[in-house]
Protein backbone atom coordinates (compact mmCIF):
# COMPACT_ATOMS: atom_id res chain seq x y z
CA UNK A 1 0.00 0.00 0.00
CA UNK A 2 1.29 3.42 -0.95
CA UNK A 3 -0.03 6.86 -0.16
CA UNK A 4 0.47 8.64 -3.47
CA UNK A 5 0.85 12.32 -4.16
CA UNK A 6 -2.03 12.91 -6.52
CA UNK A 7 -4.92 11.19 -8.31
CA UNK A 8 -2.89 10.81 -11.51
CA UNK A 9 -0.33 8.67 -9.72
CA UNK A 10 -3.18 6.68 -8.15
CA UNK A 11 -4.44 5.53 -11.55
CA UNK A 12 -1.06 5.24 -13.24
CA UNK A 13 -0.42 2.18 -15.35
CA UNK A 14 -3.96 1.39 -16.38
CA UNK A 15 -3.98 -0.22 -19.81
CA UNK A 16 -6.23 0.29 -22.82
CA UNK A 17 -9.07 -2.22 -22.69
CA UNK A 18 -8.98 -2.48 -18.92
CA UNK A 19 -12.03 -3.18 -16.79
CA UNK A 20 -12.49 -0.44 -14.21
CA UNK A 21 -14.82 -0.75 -11.23
CA UNK A 22 -16.04 2.67 -10.15
CA UNK A 23 -17.79 3.12 -6.81
CA UNK A 24 -20.54 5.51 -5.92
CA UNK A 25 -24.29 5.73 -5.99
CA UNK A 26 -25.20 9.15 -7.22
CA UNK A 27 -22.80 11.67 -5.71
CA UNK A 28 -22.37 9.60 -2.53
CA UNK A 29 -19.13 7.67 -2.67
CA UNK A 30 -18.28 8.79 -6.18
CA UNK A 31 -14.49 9.01 -6.58
CA UNK A 32 -14.62 12.09 -8.78
CA UNK A 33 -10.94 13.00 -8.55
CA UNK A 34 -9.89 9.49 -9.55
CA UNK A 35 -12.33 9.37 -12.45
CA UNK A 36 -10.97 12.69 -13.68
CA UNK A 37 -7.43 11.35 -13.43
CA UNK A 38 -8.44 8.27 -15.37
CA UNK A 39 -9.78 10.52 -18.11
CA UNK A 40 -6.58 12.57 -18.15
CA UNK A 41 -4.55 9.38 -18.49
CA UNK A 42 -5.87 9.06 -22.04
CA UNK A 43 -6.65 5.38 -21.65
CA UNK A 44 -9.14 3.95 -24.13
CA UNK A 45 -11.51 1.06 -24.76
CA UNK A 46 -12.41 0.75 -21.09
CA UNK A 47 -15.13 -1.45 -19.70
CA UNK A 48 -16.63 0.45 -16.78
CA UNK A 49 -18.63 -1.14 -13.98
CA UNK A 50 -20.73 1.37 -12.05
CA UNK A 51 -24.26 1.45 -10.76
CA UNK A 52 -25.20 4.18 -13.20
CA UNK A 53 -23.98 5.58 -16.50
CA UNK A 54 -23.02 9.09 -15.57
CA UNK A 55 -24.80 12.33 -14.80
CA UNK A 56 -24.48 15.71 -16.42
CA UNK A 57 -21.13 16.27 -18.05
CA UNK A 58 -18.68 15.55 -15.24
CA UNK A 59 -17.08 12.47 -13.75
CA UNK A 60 -18.13 9.28 -15.51
CA UNK A 61 -20.13 11.26 -18.08
CA UNK A 62 -16.97 13.17 -19.04
CA UNK A 63 -15.04 9.90 -19.24
CA UNK A 64 -17.61 8.58 -21.70
CA UNK A 65 -17.86 11.84 -23.61
CA UNK A 66 -14.09 11.75 -24.08
CA UNK A 67 -14.37 8.43 -25.89
CA UNK A 68 -12.54 6.39 -23.25
CA UNK A 69 -15.30 3.86 -22.64
CA UNK A 70 -16.43 1.13 -24.99
CA UNK A 71 -18.72 -0.77 -22.64
CA UNK A 72 -20.58 -0.17 -19.43
CA UNK A 73 -21.98 -2.71 -17.00
CA UNK A 74 -24.54 -1.10 -14.71
CA UNK A 75 -27.98 -1.45 -13.21
CA UNK A 76 -29.54 1.93 -13.96
CA UNK A 77 -28.18 3.87 -16.94
CA UNK A 78 -31.26 5.96 -17.62
CA UNK A 79 -31.53 9.05 -15.48
CA UNK A 80 -32.88 12.52 -15.90
CA UNK A 81 -29.42 13.87 -16.73
CA UNK A 82 -27.74 10.86 -18.34
CA UNK A 83 -27.82 12.47 -21.78
CA UNK A 84 -24.16 11.83 -22.52
CA UNK A 85 -24.62 8.10 -22.13
CA UNK A 86 -28.00 8.18 -23.87
CA UNK A 87 -26.46 9.74 -26.98
CA UNK A 88 -23.48 7.39 -27.11
CA UNK A 89 -25.70 4.36 -26.56
CA UNK A 90 -28.22 5.31 -29.22
CA UNK A 91 -25.45 5.98 -31.72
CA UNK A 92 -23.91 2.58 -31.00
CA UNK A 93 -20.69 4.10 -29.68
CA UNK A 94 -21.01 2.36 -26.34
CA UNK A 95 -22.18 -1.12 -25.34
CA UNK A 96 -24.44 -1.65 -22.38
CA UNK A 97 -24.96 -4.64 -20.09
CA UNK A 98 -27.81 -4.07 -17.66
CA UNK A 99 -27.67 -6.15 -14.48
CA UNK A 100 -30.12 -6.02 -11.58
CA UNK A 101 -28.47 -3.95 -8.87
CA UNK A 102 -28.17 -6.75 -6.33
CA UNK A 103 -26.83 -9.18 -8.90
CA UNK A 104 -24.30 -6.53 -9.87
CA UNK A 105 -23.14 -6.08 -6.28
CA UNK A 106 -23.05 -9.84 -5.74
CA UNK A 107 -21.12 -10.48 -8.95
CA UNK A 108 -18.48 -8.00 -7.84
CA UNK A 109 -18.40 -9.56 -4.39
CA UNK A 110 -17.97 -12.97 -6.07
CA UNK A 111 -15.07 -11.56 -8.06
CA UNK A 112 -13.34 -10.52 -4.87
CA UNK A 113 -14.25 -13.66 -2.98
CA UNK A 114 -13.04 -16.19 -5.53
CA UNK A 115 -16.56 -17.45 -6.27
CA UNK A 116 -16.84 -18.34 -9.95
CA UNK A 117 -20.59 -17.91 -10.22
CA UNK A 118 -23.80 -18.21 -8.25
CA UNK A 119 -27.47 -18.99 -8.65
CA UNK A 120 -29.66 -16.01 -7.84
CA UNK A 121 -33.46 -15.80 -7.94
CA UNK A 122 -33.33 -12.14 -8.97
CA UNK A 123 -34.22 -11.72 -12.60
CA UNK A 124 -35.38 -15.30 -13.13
CA UNK A 125 -38.12 -15.40 -15.74
CA UNK A 126 -37.42 -11.87 -16.95
CA UNK A 127 -35.76 -10.63 -20.11
CA UNK A 128 -32.56 -10.02 -18.15
CA UNK A 129 -32.26 -13.80 -17.76
CA UNK A 130 -32.59 -14.48 -21.47
CA UNK A 131 -29.76 -16.65 -22.71
CA UNK A 132 -28.60 -17.37 -19.18
CA UNK A 133 -28.52 -20.75 -17.52
CA UNK A 134 -31.36 -21.30 -15.08
CA UNK A 135 -32.02 -23.89 -12.44
CA UNK A 136 -34.75 -24.66 -9.96
CA UNK A 137 -33.35 -24.98 -6.46
CA UNK A 138 -35.69 -25.79 -3.58
CA UNK A 139 -38.65 -25.11 -5.84
CA UNK A 140 -37.48 -21.67 -6.83
CA UNK A 141 -36.11 -20.55 -10.19
CA UNK A 142 -32.58 -19.19 -10.17
CA UNK A 143 -30.31 -17.65 -12.80
CA UNK A 144 -26.59 -18.36 -13.00
CA UNK A 145 -24.55 -15.18 -12.81
CA UNK A 146 -20.78 -15.04 -13.12
CA UNK A 147 -18.23 -13.08 -11.12
CA UNK A 148 -17.01 -9.65 -12.21
CA UNK A 149 -13.42 -8.64 -11.52
CA UNK A 150 -11.58 -5.51 -12.51
CA UNK A 151 -8.09 -4.49 -13.42
CA UNK A 152 -8.58 -1.29 -11.46
CA UNK A 153 -11.06 -0.20 -8.81
CA UNK A 154 -11.69 3.45 -8.03
CA UNK A 155 -13.18 3.91 -4.58
CA UNK A 156 -13.99 6.84 -2.36
CA UNK A 157 -13.70 6.30 1.38
CA UNK A 158 -13.75 8.64 4.35
CA UNK A 159 -10.50 7.84 6.10
CA UNK A 160 -7.56 5.50 5.60
CA UNK A 161 -4.72 4.57 7.88
CA UNK A 162 -1.21 4.06 6.53
CA UNK A 163 -1.82 0.33 6.13
CA UNK A 164 -4.78 1.06 3.85
CA UNK A 165 -7.52 0.15 6.31
CA UNK A 166 -10.63 2.10 5.35
CA UNK A 167 -13.76 3.46 6.93
CA UNK A 168 -16.60 5.09 5.01
CA UNK A 169 -19.29 7.65 5.81
CA UNK A 170 -22.98 6.75 5.88
CA UNK A 171 -24.50 5.64 2.58
CA UNK A 172 -21.34 6.68 0.72
CA UNK A 173 -20.12 3.20 1.69
CA UNK A 174 -22.28 1.60 -1.05
CA UNK A 175 -20.14 -0.22 -3.65
CA UNK A 176 -16.73 0.72 -2.23
CA UNK A 177 -16.13 -2.26 0.05
CA UNK A 178 -16.99 -4.87 -2.59
CA UNK A 179 -15.23 -3.13 -5.47
CA UNK A 180 -12.07 -2.76 -3.36
CA UNK A 181 -11.90 -6.56 -3.11
CA UNK A 182 -12.41 -7.30 -6.78
CA UNK A 183 -9.65 -5.51 -8.67
CA UNK A 184 -5.99 -6.15 -9.32
CA UNK A 185 -5.23 -2.57 -8.30
CA UNK A 186 -7.48 -0.68 -5.90
CA UNK A 187 -7.04 3.09 -5.77
CA UNK A 188 -8.86 5.00 -3.06
CA UNK A 189 -9.49 8.68 -2.56
CA UNK A 190 -10.03 9.65 1.06
CA UNK A 191 -10.67 12.79 3.05
CA UNK A 192 -7.72 12.05 5.29
CA UNK A 193 -4.99 9.57 6.12
CA UNK A 194 -4.37 8.74 9.77
CA UNK A 195 -1.55 6.92 11.49
CA UNK A 196 -1.54 3.17 11.99
CA UNK A 197 -3.42 2.40 15.17
CA UNK A 198 -5.78 5.37 14.86
CA UNK A 199 -8.61 3.22 13.50
CA UNK A 200 -10.35 0.85 15.89
CA UNK A 201 -9.82 -2.69 14.50
CA UNK A 202 -13.48 -3.46 15.23
CA UNK A 203 -14.75 -0.77 12.87
CA UNK A 204 -12.49 -1.17 9.85
CA UNK A 205 -14.76 -1.83 6.88
CA UNK A 206 -12.14 -2.49 4.20
CA UNK A 207 -8.97 -4.13 5.53
CA UNK A 208 -5.76 -2.75 4.06
CA UNK A 209 -5.04 -5.99 2.23
CA UNK A 210 -7.47 -4.82 -0.45
CA UNK A 211 -5.97 -1.39 -0.95
CA UNK A 212 -3.01 -0.56 -3.18
CA UNK A 213 -2.95 3.22 -3.49
CA UNK A 214 -4.46 5.97 -1.37
CA UNK A 215 -4.67 9.63 -2.24
CA UNK A 216 -6.00 12.42 -0.08
CA UNK A 217 -8.60 14.56 -1.86
CA UNK A 218 -10.19 16.99 0.50
CA UNK A 219 -13.92 17.26 0.06
CA UNK A 220 -14.84 20.89 -0.44
CA UNK A 221 -16.67 22.56 2.43
Amino acid at each position, binding site marked *: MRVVADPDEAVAGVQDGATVLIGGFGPAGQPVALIDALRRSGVSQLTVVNNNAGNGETGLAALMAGGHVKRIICSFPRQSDSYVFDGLYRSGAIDLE*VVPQGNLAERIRAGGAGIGGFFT*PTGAGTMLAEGKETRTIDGRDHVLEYAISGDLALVKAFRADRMGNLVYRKTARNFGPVMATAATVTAVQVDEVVEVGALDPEVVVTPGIYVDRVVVVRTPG
Partner: protein
Amino acid sequence: MTSSGGATEVGTIEHLDRGPLDRHEMARIVARDIPAGSYVNLGIGQPTLVSDHLDPDSGVVLHTENGMLGMGPVAVGEEIDLDLTNAGKIPVTELPGASYFHHADSFAMMRGGHLDVCVLGAFQVAVNGDLANWHTGTPDAIPAVGGAMDLATGVRDVYVMMTLFAKDGTAKLVTRCTYPLTGLGCVSRVFTDHAVFLIADGQVTVSETFGISVEELRSRLAVPLLAR
Protein backbone atom coordinates in the same frame (compact mmCIF):
# COMPACT_ATOMS: atom_id res chain seq x y z
CA MET B 1 -71.03 -4.11 0.04
CA THR B 2 -72.20 -5.21 -3.35
CA SER B 3 -72.91 -8.75 -4.32
CA SER B 4 -72.84 -9.61 -7.97
CA GLY B 5 -74.05 -13.15 -7.69
CA GLY B 6 -74.84 -15.99 -5.37
CA ALA B 7 -71.49 -16.04 -3.62
CA THR B 8 -71.29 -14.51 -0.19
CA GLU B 9 -68.89 -11.60 -0.36
CA VAL B 10 -68.72 -10.26 3.13
CA GLY B 11 -66.17 -7.68 4.04
CA THR B 12 -65.34 -5.62 0.98
CA ILE B 13 -65.69 -2.00 2.00
CA GLU B 14 -67.07 0.35 -0.61
CA HIS B 15 -66.26 3.97 0.13
CA LEU B 16 -68.70 5.41 -2.35
CA ASP B 17 -68.50 8.82 -0.67
CA ARG B 18 -64.77 9.38 -1.30
CA GLY B 19 -62.45 8.74 -4.11
CA PRO B 20 -60.73 8.36 -6.39
CA LEU B 21 -57.82 8.95 -4.00
CA ASP B 22 -55.01 11.33 -4.72
CA ARG B 23 -51.47 10.05 -4.21
CA HIS B 24 -51.26 11.34 -0.66
CA GLU B 25 -54.47 9.56 0.27
CA MET B 26 -53.17 6.40 -1.37
CA ALA B 27 -49.95 6.72 0.61
CA ARG B 28 -51.98 6.98 3.81
CA ILE B 29 -53.88 3.78 3.01
CA VAL B 30 -50.65 1.96 2.24
CA ALA B 31 -49.12 3.15 5.51
CA ARG B 32 -52.18 1.98 7.40
CA ASP B 33 -51.78 -1.55 5.99
CA ILE B 34 -48.10 -1.97 6.88
CA PRO B 35 -47.92 -4.13 10.01
CA ALA B 36 -46.32 -2.53 13.08
CA GLY B 37 -42.67 -3.48 13.52
CA SER B 38 -42.13 -4.25 9.84
CA TYR B 39 -38.89 -3.67 7.98
CA VAL B 40 -39.95 -1.80 4.87
CA ASN B 41 -38.45 -0.55 1.63
CA LEU B 42 -40.24 2.25 -0.15
CA GLY B 43 -39.50 2.41 -3.86
CA ILE B 44 -38.43 5.64 -5.49
CA GLY B 45 -41.14 8.02 -6.66
CA GLN B 46 -44.64 7.97 -5.21
CA PRO B 47 -44.01 5.16 -2.69
CA THR B 48 -41.68 7.46 -0.74
CA LEU B 49 -44.79 9.44 0.22
CA VAL B 50 -45.80 6.52 2.44
CA SER B 51 -43.19 7.50 5.00
CA ASP B 52 -45.11 10.71 5.74
CA HIS B 53 -48.02 8.62 7.00
CA LEU B 54 -46.26 6.02 9.13
CA ASP B 55 -46.98 6.30 12.84
CA PRO B 56 -43.64 6.97 14.54
CA ASP B 57 -44.72 4.59 17.30
CA SER B 58 -45.41 1.74 14.88
CA GLY B 59 -41.84 0.52 15.05
CA VAL B 60 -41.63 0.38 11.27
CA VAL B 61 -37.98 0.54 10.19
CA LEU B 62 -37.18 1.85 6.72
CA HIS B 63 -34.54 0.24 4.55
CA THR B 64 -32.87 1.98 1.64
CA GLU B 65 -31.10 -0.35 -0.75
CA ASN B 66 -28.06 1.86 -1.10
CA GLY B 67 -27.09 0.62 2.33
CA MET B 68 -29.04 1.64 5.40
CA LEU B 69 -31.66 0.58 7.88
CA GLY B 70 -33.32 3.18 10.07
CA MET B 71 -33.71 5.86 7.43
CA GLY B 72 -35.43 9.01 8.63
CA PRO B 73 -37.32 11.77 6.78
CA VAL B 74 -35.93 13.77 3.90
CA ALA B 75 -33.16 16.10 5.05
CA VAL B 76 -33.78 19.83 5.03
CA GLY B 77 -31.44 22.78 5.45
CA GLU B 78 -28.52 22.06 7.73
CA GLU B 79 -29.37 18.36 7.85
CA ILE B 80 -28.39 17.84 4.22
CA ASP B 81 -25.34 15.58 3.92
CA LEU B 82 -24.45 14.33 0.45
CA ASP B 83 -23.07 11.13 1.98
CA LEU B 84 -26.53 10.24 3.28
CA THR B 85 -29.10 9.71 0.56
CA ASN B 86 -31.93 7.35 -0.25
CA ALA B 87 -32.28 5.12 -3.29
CA GLY B 88 -33.64 8.08 -5.22
CA LYS B 89 -30.41 9.95 -4.38
CA ILE B 90 -32.30 12.47 -2.26
CA PRO B 91 -30.63 13.54 1.00
CA VAL B 92 -32.29 11.90 3.98
CA THR B 93 -31.71 11.64 7.72
CA GLU B 94 -30.73 8.91 10.15
CA LEU B 95 -32.88 7.70 13.04
CA PRO B 96 -31.58 6.27 16.33
CA GLY B 97 -30.88 2.56 15.91
CA ALA B 98 -29.81 2.98 12.28
CA SER B 99 -27.06 0.92 10.65
CA TYR B 100 -25.02 1.22 7.47
CA PHE B 101 -23.78 -1.60 5.25
CA HIS B 102 -22.36 -2.02 1.78
CA HIS B 103 -24.31 -2.80 -1.36
CA ALA B 104 -23.71 -6.56 -1.40
CA ASP B 105 -24.88 -6.82 2.20
CA SER B 106 -27.86 -4.59 1.50
CA PHE B 107 -29.04 -6.69 -1.42
CA ALA B 108 -28.31 -9.89 0.48
CA MET B 109 -30.77 -8.56 3.05
CA MET B 110 -33.36 -8.01 0.32
CA ARG B 111 -32.76 -11.21 -1.65
CA GLY B 112 -32.63 -13.28 1.51
CA GLY B 113 -36.22 -12.45 2.37
CA HIS B 114 -35.52 -10.37 5.45
CA LEU B 115 -37.58 -7.33 4.51
CA ASP B 116 -41.24 -7.66 5.38
CA VAL B 117 -42.76 -5.23 2.91
CA CYS B 118 -41.78 -3.14 -0.06
CA VAL B 119 -43.95 -0.63 -1.85
CA LEU B 120 -43.34 -0.22 -5.57
CA GLY B 121 -44.85 1.63 -8.46
CA ALA B 122 -45.97 -0.38 -11.48
CA PHE B 123 -46.86 -0.23 -15.15
CA GLN B 124 -48.87 -3.44 -14.84
CA VAL B 125 -49.81 -6.05 -12.27
CA ALA B 126 -51.35 -9.37 -13.35
CA VAL B 127 -53.81 -11.62 -11.54
CA ASN B 128 -51.04 -14.15 -10.90
CA GLY B 129 -49.01 -11.50 -9.06
CA ASP B 130 -46.63 -10.80 -11.93
CA LEU B 131 -45.18 -7.31 -11.80
CA ALA B 132 -44.02 -5.10 -14.69
CA ASN B 133 -42.48 -1.85 -13.56
CA TRP B 134 -39.06 -1.43 -15.13
CA HIS B 135 -39.37 -1.31 -18.90
CA THR B 136 -42.05 -0.12 -21.26
CA GLY B 137 -41.03 -2.65 -23.85
CA THR B 138 -40.58 -0.02 -26.55
CA PRO B 139 -37.67 -1.06 -28.75
CA ASP B 140 -35.63 2.12 -28.37
CA ALA B 141 -36.05 2.47 -24.60
CA ILE B 142 -32.82 2.34 -22.65
CA PRO B 143 -33.23 -0.52 -20.19
CA ALA B 144 -32.67 0.48 -16.57
CA VAL B 145 -33.65 -1.87 -13.79
CA GLY B 146 -31.86 -0.69 -10.64
CA GLY B 147 -33.03 -2.59 -7.59
CA ALA B 148 -36.57 -3.25 -8.82
CA MET B 149 -36.05 -6.95 -9.55
CA ASP B 150 -34.24 -7.49 -6.27
CA LEU B 151 -37.14 -5.97 -4.36
CA ALA B 152 -39.80 -7.82 -6.35
CA THR B 153 -38.00 -11.13 -5.91
CA GLY B 154 -36.69 -10.82 -2.39
CA VAL B 155 -39.16 -8.98 -0.21
CA ARG B 156 -41.80 -11.07 1.53
CA ASP B 157 -44.81 -8.85 0.75
CA VAL B 158 -44.65 -6.75 -2.38
CA TYR B 159 -47.19 -3.96 -2.32
CA VAL B 160 -47.86 -1.97 -5.44
CA MET B 161 -49.04 1.62 -5.37
CA MET B 162 -50.31 2.95 -8.71
CA THR B 163 -53.19 4.55 -10.48
CA LEU B 164 -55.58 1.87 -11.64
CA PHE B 165 -55.71 3.26 -15.15
CA ALA B 166 -52.95 4.58 -17.37
CA LYS B 167 -53.26 8.03 -18.91
CA ASP B 168 -54.74 6.48 -22.03
CA GLY B 169 -57.44 4.84 -19.92
CA THR B 170 -56.18 1.26 -20.15
CA ALA B 171 -56.25 -0.74 -16.95
CA LYS B 172 -52.96 -1.51 -15.23
CA LEU B 173 -54.40 -4.49 -13.36
CA VAL B 174 -54.39 -7.09 -16.11
CA THR B 175 -54.95 -10.73 -16.93
CA ARG B 176 -51.42 -11.05 -18.15
CA CYS B 177 -48.61 -8.49 -18.24
CA THR B 178 -47.67 -7.31 -21.73
CA TYR B 179 -44.72 -5.23 -20.55
CA PRO B 180 -41.44 -6.97 -19.67
CA LEU B 181 -41.64 -8.52 -16.22
CA THR B 182 -39.83 -7.34 -13.12
CA GLY B 183 -40.80 -10.31 -10.97
CA LEU B 184 -43.05 -13.34 -11.25
CA GLY B 185 -45.94 -13.97 -8.90
CA CYS B 186 -44.60 -11.56 -6.36
CA VAL B 187 -47.30 -8.94 -5.76
CA SER B 188 -49.62 -9.55 -2.83
CA ARG B 189 -51.45 -6.24 -2.56
CA VAL B 190 -52.26 -3.43 -5.00
CA PHE B 191 -53.19 0.03 -3.78
CA THR B 192 -54.82 2.21 -6.41
CA ASP B 193 -56.80 5.42 -6.54
CA HIS B 194 -60.01 3.40 -7.06
CA ALA B 195 -59.53 0.31 -4.93
CA VAL B 196 -57.28 -1.94 -2.92
CA PHE B 197 -56.78 -5.43 -4.34
CA LEU B 198 -55.44 -8.53 -2.65
CA ILE B 199 -53.71 -11.08 -4.87
CA ALA B 200 -53.39 -14.71 -3.85
CA ASP B 201 -53.51 -18.05 -5.63
CA GLY B 202 -54.06 -16.46 -8.99
CA GLN B 203 -57.15 -14.60 -7.84
CA VAL B 204 -57.82 -10.95 -7.17
CA THR B 205 -59.98 -9.89 -4.28
CA VAL B 206 -61.22 -6.34 -3.86
CA SER B 207 -60.84 -5.38 -0.24
CA GLU B 208 -61.82 -1.73 -0.44
CA THR B 209 -63.07 0.71 -3.07
CA PHE B 210 -62.96 4.50 -3.28
CA GLY B 211 -65.69 6.35 -5.15
CA ILE B 212 -66.64 3.33 -7.18
CA SER B 213 -68.57 0.14 -6.57
CA VAL B 214 -67.17 -3.34 -7.01
CA GLU B 215 -69.81 -3.80 -9.71
CA GLU B 216 -68.56 -0.82 -11.65
CA LEU B 217 -64.93 -1.90 -11.18
CA ARG B 218 -65.85 -5.24 -12.73
CA SER B 219 -67.27 -3.47 -15.72
CA ARG B 220 -64.08 -1.50 -16.23
CA LEU B 221 -61.55 -4.31 -15.73
CA ALA B 222 -60.98 -7.44 -17.77
CA VAL B 223 -59.77 -9.19 -14.64
CA PRO B 224 -62.18 -11.38 -12.65
CA LEU B 225 -62.66 -9.77 -9.25
CA LEU B 226 -63.70 -11.44 -6.05
CA ALA B 227 -65.23 -9.45 -3.27
CA ARG B 228 -65.08 -10.71 0.27
